[in-house]
């Protein structure tokens, strides 16, 4: 029993990020009916955006600065890890009227 507890504790320690940093979060952005859904208000470097395309159509999440370009066939998902702070404008490259801005802080 004690061994098991120790093993579990060791595992928790192993997956916890280095002390001092915030745990990286995953934020889901749903795409439906030709729109990007609500964007997360607080994003940090290291966070992940999970783009979930629930629409009938193929879309993409494409950063204007070229930092990411995620292809999203209908019904599929993709992820972006945020590597730098700042305002990152993005759009769907197939339907450029679908767009938004990610605000990322350190």
């Amino acid at each position: 029993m004690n061994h098991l507890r120790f093993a579990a504790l060791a595992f928790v320690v192993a997956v916890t990020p280095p002390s001092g940093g915030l745990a990286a979060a995953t934020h889901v952005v749903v795409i439906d009916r030709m729109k990007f859904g609500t964007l997360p208000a607080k994003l940090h470097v290291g966070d992940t955006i999970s783009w979930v395309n629930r629409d009938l159509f193929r879309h993409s999440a494409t950063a204007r600065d070229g930092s990411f370009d995620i292809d999203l066939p209908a019904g599929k998902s993709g992820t972006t890890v945020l590597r730098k702070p700042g305002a990152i404008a993005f759009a769907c490259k197939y339907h450029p009227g679908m767009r938004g801005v990610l605000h990322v802080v350190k």
Partner: protein
Amino acid sequence: MLKFFMTAGAAVLLVAIAPAQAADAKPNDAQIAHIAYTAGTLDVAAGKQALAKSHDKAVRDFASEMVRDHEAVNDKALALVKKLNVTPQDNPTSAALKAAADKKRDELAKLDGPAFDKAYIANEVAYHRTVNGALRDTLIPSAQNAELKALLKTGLTLFSEHQAHAEHLAAHLK
């Protein structure tokens, strides 16, 4: 030249849409489904013609997008009419749309290279502008079923994006 094509295409299609509006201001859901499905099918055919003829990457990408998006929305429309147990009903507007598109396809078949690209994209601008006008002013307000109305609204958003994309391409092909 481009303006001429756009105007000519728009004029043909405006005439095509007009009869149903004049004869029957409010098409029923079975007719609306038929018009929307026909409009999609015709643009898929136009896109396939462009993929067979054009060598311009931007034009081919646009044509692929038209085929993909219009097939997706038409698949959804077919599933919806089946679910609602509605049989799409042929009508003068659908017939006129088809006749105009057949004529345009024959015209485009005679062109090649940049002349084809310009004429295809100009017609896509005119076609989407006209279909979007019909969706916004006639088809969406007339639709009775909420699911059909919602699908038409998604269609209008989608086709407005296509119109903007086509206008953007047309400006670069001048």
